[in-house]
């Protein structure tokens, strides 16, 4: 799916804060959306939590910084961080080049996935939300 040039892949879950989440084998991979990456313009620095850190749904998980600005990342889901994308230390631009692929941020083992995933948007829901945001 695509809204005004911003990619929104099917099969992912989204927050209104412009993060995506993808569940696979009991682990949720988290990143920021194409819209968030393009709005930041050029990501030059990513601060992620450490492996083992506890994160809470829609609470700050880390930051993504462009030359100009800092943007807070909110965790789509509560749980424990099991993996951090270490590639971003030396190649933060991967967040821009491939926000849904190599530019992923962390993996979280969720603590309450069934309930929490219900409040996340699907691709269609996020596309509608983003469309309304861009109209303003």
């Amino acid at each position, binding site marked *: 799916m695509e809204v005004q040039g911003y990619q929104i892949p099917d099969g992912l879950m989204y927050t209104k804060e412009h993060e995506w989440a993808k569940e696979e084998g009991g682990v949720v991979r988290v990143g920021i959306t194409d819209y968030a990456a393009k709005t930041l*313009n*050029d990501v*030059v*620095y990513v*601060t992620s939590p450490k492996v083992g850190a506890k994160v809470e749904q829609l609470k700050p998980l880390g*930051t993504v*910084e*462009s*030359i*100009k600005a*800092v943007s807070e990342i909110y965790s789509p889901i509560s749980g424990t961080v099991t993996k951090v994308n270490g590639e971003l230390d030396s190649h933060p*631009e991967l967040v*821009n080049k491939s926000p849904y692929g190599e530019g992923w941020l962390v993996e979280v083992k969720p603590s309450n996935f069934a309930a929490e995933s219900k409040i996340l948007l699907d691709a269609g829901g996020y596309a509608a939300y983003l469309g309304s945001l861009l109209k303003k």
Partner: protein
Amino acid sequence: MLKTTQLHAYHASHAKMTEFAGYDMPLWYTTTTDEHFAVRNSSGIFDVSHMGRFEVKGSQATDFLEGLVPTNVRPQPLGKAFYTLLLNDRGGIIDDLIIERLADDRYMVVVNAANAHADMDHMTAHAPAGLGMEDLTGSTAMIAVQGPKAAESLQPLTEADLGQIKRFRCAETKVAGERALVSRTGYTGEDGFEVIVYGASVERPEGAMRAWEKLAATSTPCGLGARDSLRLEAGLPLHGSDIDPATNPFEADLAWVISAGKTGYVGSAVLADPAVRQPQAVRRGLVLDSGIPRHGFEVADSSGKVGFVTSGTFSPIMRKGVAQCRVRRDRSEFGTRVSVRVREAPVGGTITKPPFYDESLYGWKRTKGN
């Protein structure tokens, strides 16, 4: 309602726009990083038409400016462009600016967009009757061409031989067929030029647009994002962030603009006070070990808070966070280790003399034959 520059139509169809000093301005065209590297490695162009341009002329012009700025004006040769300050009665910096001497009795004064009104008010308040002073901001455009290949990009459009316009010199000539004032100045640390195109209003932007589009064939259009990261890497102050009307030239580390022994200019009485000349805190460059410093972050050492960040960014050249800060003078020596609170975490940093990049690789000094 935001104001627009003569080149707005180009920006609106090529750039992500942002508000700055009441103008709708380009923030970036592609990415700030790419535009930053274009200027350090080749050539970039910036629309700086939002900056204030005042022409001061007449038999009283030299005396008027002499009484206004801490730099000697009378001995400046024709064709000289010099950096100086407008000060208030307390010695605080109303603005930093470039004055270009076009004739014995004619000057171009180029000021920051955000301060243009305050500057004009200040100058008007001190102007003698009969002084010729005209605001040319609306009737001229201004384009900065910056980078090691700036001369190569600008020369084919320019009547004058740019090789004859040395650093901090200027000349009136023609650019893209339009009357123009070209100075070898800029805000990036690189070799480059600032071109004031005469006879270009928002209603009649054609001449300025032609110059811009011709330059865009060989130079990369750059937005305010790159303008800020470039000037921060070079250690150049931004008025309103790093210096302001409450900061005097000694605190601003700009006392070098004060000509030795000069008196009788606005603010000079205060600046003669020995206590003022030994300020508590001074502007300094700062390079962080990790993280990106931002405006307002606290600078500390083992004794506690010693200052704060006045502006900061990520340096694409150094791949590190760099900043300007205001620190206690007894902690301001180059090489002093400090810590900066980047959100929760304290990060190490070093008080560093700008420019932060290696001057044998980047910046105007590497370019031979200027």
